[in-house]
């Protein structure tokens, strides 16, 4: 409401835009996290994550915000592998997001 005022259309576009961004960011993270794996595993990872209709249907189309939780969970795993102190912060964000 603070950003979009009383416009339902603007709120819908903003909300779905955030979900779409989280979904695309998750795909980018998966691509980065599997960069060191064999080509077949990288392809499998992107196909499973990106081509499964469930992902787009349940997030961008239906508006489930779980993708935000999972994006932060993926971020946590990526940071955890690098030994970064921000990893548990990302995980807390994920837990709070749901």
């Amino acid at each position: 409401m603070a950003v979009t005022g009383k416009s339902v259309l603007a709120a819908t576009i903003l909300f779905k835009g955030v979900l779409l961004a989280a979904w695309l960011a998750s795909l980018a993270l998966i691509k980065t996290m599997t960069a060191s794996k064999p080509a077949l595993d990288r392809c499998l990872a992107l196909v499973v994550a990106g081509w499964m209709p469930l992902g787009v249907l349940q997030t961008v189309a239906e508006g489930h915000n779980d993708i935000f939780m999972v994006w932060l969970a993926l971020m946590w795993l990526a940071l955890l592998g690098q030994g970064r102190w921000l990893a548990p912060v990302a995980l807390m964000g994920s837990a709070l997001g749901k």
Partner: protein
Amino acid sequence: MTAPLFLIDVIIAWRLHGLGWRQLIVRYVGPGLLGIAVFGVFYRSPEFFEGTRVISEWEFLQPRHAVEAIELAVGFDLNVLDWTITATFVLIALASVVVLLRTPTLDNATKAALAIMSAISFVGIAHCGRGIWSGQVLLAALVPRWWLARFVDRRLSPGCVLVIILVG
């Protein structure tokens, strides 16, 4: 949903990165304060948990519901099968955590995270939300050849999704 994954964070920080118990405590001060701050902003009364309570009354799409359907079809009690499925998911999660403790790698951390989330979503909660499934798929994508990841992917295959959409 993802709060239990802190167990994995502790194991990796301790076993892989070699953090001592003091460093571990310091590690969780920031996230703890963040959690308290956000909770403090939104919590006003116990009714804060009303949504969670209502959702816990929804019963939908769990393996035990499939068992109930089979019970109706065959006409006898399959309670043992129900408990076997529940115990299996819990044991898979426990086993994956033990493997992670013994061999602390990022792959094993991902597997343990997927196993824990599968246990929660398939048997731990009453209503397995489709949004949660979409999250599980993304974790499964990181270890696509692991058998549990394949189970998750196939359970959520396009045909299954079509049925869910038609029924739901």
